[in-house]
């Protein structure tokens, strides 16, 4: 047994001494070129797509694995990569490979042959407003025509799971406010409250709406406003205080106690960010790799532009000067159709993007806050 042990020990030691440097060299990207028999530095490409399971061709050869995948042992230089997926346009690029380096093509958004667009409501709307917790408010001049839309459905890796939309009127027919007309809506991002300024029987009324309740709780707080404010804002973590901005003063209004406090501009709380006056025109999506942008009435997608000239894809036409909203939880874009004014949803991301890959900045698409150069 002792001799057997010694022999096996020496065999294993020799094997280790041979394979360890080979594996380390392989790990560093060194391989032997079968044609020249020289040791060459190689690079690799990491490819992940949205949706996954796309076939990858490199220089015309099909890779063994579908996306996400790593293509190894690539000689330095340009390689032509084509990605194919049923129901989506092919993605093709010349990708430069550098020895010992990894080229990262993460979260390539594959463009569908036809964008899946769903009409959520056939009723025309004037605009849409976004509140927290998957709630959309579709507005119209008449208060009785304002609807609340709850987007429901489980959050899964695959966004293809059907979502349903519950639509209900904000004001019931019997409501004393139903006959009024909408003047303005004040809202704050990620806040379940909205403030509706309405004209009811020729009088200005301010209605504080708690959307967390079902049906929504509506409270007339008109008495708390001395005059018509230029704007109203509140902190989305504070459910009690709102700030009314008048031409010459600011007041803090406590909704719960129905009390008013004069407020200096210096004492305003942090995070009091009013919604922008202009409708939201652009969204960075897919782990910040792609840009959804509206130019005129067209909503367009600009995919990553690395290794190729930028190309825009038209998604749909929306009603000008209305809001559009991208819901990250289910990868859908909400907008009002340009022709009919009805509320529509376009599924942009078929899957959740793969996050947390420490992709070097140099490998990422450079999308400035102003969008790509057009």
């Amino acid at each position, binding site marked *: 047994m002792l001799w*057997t042990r010694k022999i096996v020990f020496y065999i294993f030691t020799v094997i280790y001494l041979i394979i360890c440097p080979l594996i380390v060299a392989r*790990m560093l990207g060194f391989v032997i070129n079968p044609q020249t028999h020289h040791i060459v530095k190689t690079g690799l490409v990491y490819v992940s797509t949205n949706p996954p399971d796309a076939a990858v061709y490199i220089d015309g050869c099909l890779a063994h694995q579908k996306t996400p995948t*790593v293509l190894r042992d690539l000689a330095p230089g340009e390689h032509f990569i084509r990605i194919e997926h049923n129901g989506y346009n092919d993605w093709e690029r010349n990708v430069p490979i550098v020895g010992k380096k990894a080229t990262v093509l993460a979260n390539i958004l594959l463009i569908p042959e036809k964008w899946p667009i769903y009409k959520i409501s056939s009723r025309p709307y004037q605009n849409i407003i976004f509140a927290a917790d998957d709630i959309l408010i579709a507005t119209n001049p008449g208060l009785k025509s304002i609807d609340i839309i709850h987007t429901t459905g489980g959050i899964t890796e695959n966004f293809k799971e059907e979502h349903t939309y519950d639509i209900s009127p904000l004001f019931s027919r019997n409501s004393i406010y139903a006959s009024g007309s909408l003047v303005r809506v004040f809202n704050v991002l990620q806040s379940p409250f909205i403030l509706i300024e309405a004209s009811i029987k020729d009088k200005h009324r301010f209605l504080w709406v708690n959307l967390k309740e079902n049906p929504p709780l509506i409270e007339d707080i008109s008495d708390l406003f001395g005059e018509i404010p230029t704007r109203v804002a509140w902190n989305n973590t504070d459910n009690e205080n709102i700030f009314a901005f008048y031409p010459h003063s600011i007041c803090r209004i406590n909704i719960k106690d129905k009390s008013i406090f004069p407020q200096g501009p210096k004492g305003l709380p942090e995070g009091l960010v009013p919604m922008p006056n202009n409708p939201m025109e652009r969204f960075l999506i897919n782990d910040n790799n792609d840009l959804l942008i509206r130019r005129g009435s067209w909503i367009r997608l600009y995919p990553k532009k690395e290794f190729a000239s930028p190309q825009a894809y038209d998604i749909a036409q929306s009603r000008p000067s209305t809001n559009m909203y991208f819901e990250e939880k289910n990868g859908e874009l909400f907008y009002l159709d340009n022709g009919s004014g009805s509320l529509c949803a376009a599924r942009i991301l078929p899957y959740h993007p793969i996050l947390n890959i420490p992709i070097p900045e140099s490998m990422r698409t450079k999308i400035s806050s102003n969008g790509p150069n057009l």
Partner: protein
Amino acid sequence: MKFHYSKENLKTGQAKLQRFLEILPGACSWSVLLGLILLSIFFPFIAAILIVAFYLSWIMRILYSTIFLVLSYLQLNIEKNTDWIGRIQGIDRLAVYIKEISSKRFGRHWRQRISHKNHLRQLNELLEAQVPTPASKDIYHLVIFPVIKEGREIIEPAIEAISRQNFHLKQMVIVFALEERAAPTVQSAVHDLVKKYKNVFLDCFAVVHPALVPGEARVKGANATCAAKKAAALFQSHHIPFENVIISCFDADTVVSLNYFSCLTYHFMVCPDRQRASFQPIPVYHNNIWNVPGFARVVETGSSFYLLIEATNPEKLVTFSSHSMSFKALVDVDYWPVDMISDDSAIFWKAYIHYDGQYQVIPMYVTLSMDVACANNWWQTAKSVYKQKQRWAWGVENFPIVIRAFLRSKKIPLYEKLRHSFKLFEGHLSWATSGFILSIIGWLPVIFARREFAASVVYYNVPDIVNTIFVLGFFSICITIVLSLSLLPKTKIRYRWLLKLGHALEWLMVPFILVLFSALPALHAQTRLMRGRYLEFWVTDKHRAK
């Protein structure tokens, strides 16, 4: 070589060297761990290369160990039904016996043939050595059971197992090494057992070890030494030469297999240099294996397997736990160290140094069963297992003493010194670090990957290489599971297969066990030694279901 095998009462120069060597293992272990962590953060390339090289060496070691685990297990099976008594009687008339068995084909089964071949080889070696062999009727066994807090339910099965041996019981002396500070109930249980078994053996008595003896620490070795000295006086009074006595120092829970002493006697007789040898059986922890939490089962089965693997390499084998040795050697080396916790391995090193390297450990393919550390509840058992492993890892206390002895010795060959020093040092270093590197630190380069590292091929290649290595590791674990299941004792419960399936799944805890019950206690022990906070002997909790 005359050598004071202790860390106490050293001259200034030796004391400084001792202290430096005490710091060395812990400092190296911490340097490896912290160095790899820092490299993973600041130089992930280098860390990844080192870690992959380590993983490769680890998998080679695992596969290598698996081969010898299987071979050792087969050897254990081969010798399972050996008629040791018949062989002993044969050796009593050696020349005739060799002729008899050489001429006939032995056994139909391949196991019997291999066993026979080994037997014949050992007999020929004995014959060639031309050393007189004591007759089996002149060989005596001294068994010492150190007792401090073990109850009757623990000790009695151990002595009962000896009383059922197929060796002559009147050639056996049982000594209970009882600590003076043991509880009265424990003391009375021991005295009851002495009364019960007094006439079964040549003698059976208890020796009470005083609580406070100058120069002694509160360790098992001091207790066993006190008992062995009393036993020596007994043998002298009976005119039994120490050369014919084999001493076995067993933990109180040690239940020997039926043919343990006949097997031991055989190995003692066939070993030409029997006065300079220890005899190491395979300890298994089956006494209460089905009554302990799963993790404890896996930990102890792993310990048994480690010994099975080590048994295939007698050149590097060091005594562990319950074992046996020549009583003359024990007396020559002045008994066990009385101030060290790791008396089981220390006695080997003490003898190895005393005989200038002319001392060996003979593996015996026979099992003795002990208790798995077990307390009243899961958490206490975990603590108990942890402390037991820490005590085992405290064997690192031998390193500074052995190195000091090697530096002084001129008779031990340099190669042997280097071989043993490396094994001792590397063994403790990898014990304290491997688990952490495999389970935690190995992932750090990828976790701490900064952008330049994430843009390299290494970042993408490391996980693939590591996965392949772990798949090979899993293959090895599967073999271990199969062997573990076949070694386990039969149980009388209804759904035995369900229990076995559960045990197989328990092996999936290996990554956690590696860290919590192997690397962590070892690092803890080395850190204590490094800081000079010496461990006190802690008696493992042992409970059995009634």
